[in-house]
């Protein structure tokens, strides 16, 4: 079975530009979450979507937005890029529904974004 897939694998942008990152969840999973991992740190939660609705949002500026499509894939958009947005962006999928405590997340390989 295919795991979580993300595209592109690497991306280089300049300050002020906009970027769109894409994620396809494991088949049967209805929830997608996005994380930012800055070099040398643990991942930080950005968004969670379930059945196309936003279920949670981390402490990130409004430049960050996301959406989930009817096929449960998801996009993360970042506007007006800053140097500090350079990071590995991870997508995780889970079954969703039920208790968040027991809803195990499975991660994709990530998209490495470099902002120059």
């Amino acid at each position: 079975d295919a795991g979580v897939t993300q595209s592109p694998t690497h991306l280089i942008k300049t300050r002020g530009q906009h970027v769109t990152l894409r994620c396809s969840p494991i088949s049967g999973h209805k929830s997608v979450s996005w994380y930012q991992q800055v070099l040398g740190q643990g991942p930080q939660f950005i968004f969670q979507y379930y059945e196309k609705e936003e279920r949670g949002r981390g402490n990130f500026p409004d430049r960050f937005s996301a959406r989930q499509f009817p096929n449960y894939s998801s996009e993360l958009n970042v506007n007006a890029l800053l140097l500090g947005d350079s990071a590995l962006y991870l997508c995780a999928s889970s079954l969703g529904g039920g208790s968040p405590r027991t809803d195990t997340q499975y991660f994709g390989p990530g998209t490495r974004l470099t902002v120059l």
Partner: protein
Amino acid sequence: AQSVTQLDSHVSVSEGTPVLLRCNYSSSYSPSLFWYVQHPNKGLQLLLKYTSAATLVKGINGFEAEFKKSETSFHLTKPSAHMSDAAEYFCVVRNNDMRFGAGTRLTVKP
């Protein structure tokens, strides 16, 4: 509020010796706890999880962790390290959202 502290940023062991990666957590409610491993330039792989069943949890690749409520700890252990275990390890606490620790880099010497 919830948080997790990984007590060592770097652990170095010799191949064949035991591994101990320490994690303390803080949570207002009874949490779920996870350990993930990240190899260089890879995503995160789930090692094991605790969700209020047995307090001793067995995971993949010979790893296990014990939930100790009185000590608010969830330390990761393995009896015998292998060279392929060299990676970054993250302890995670979850009530609603997932909170990651800063990570512990495990080095395995031949």
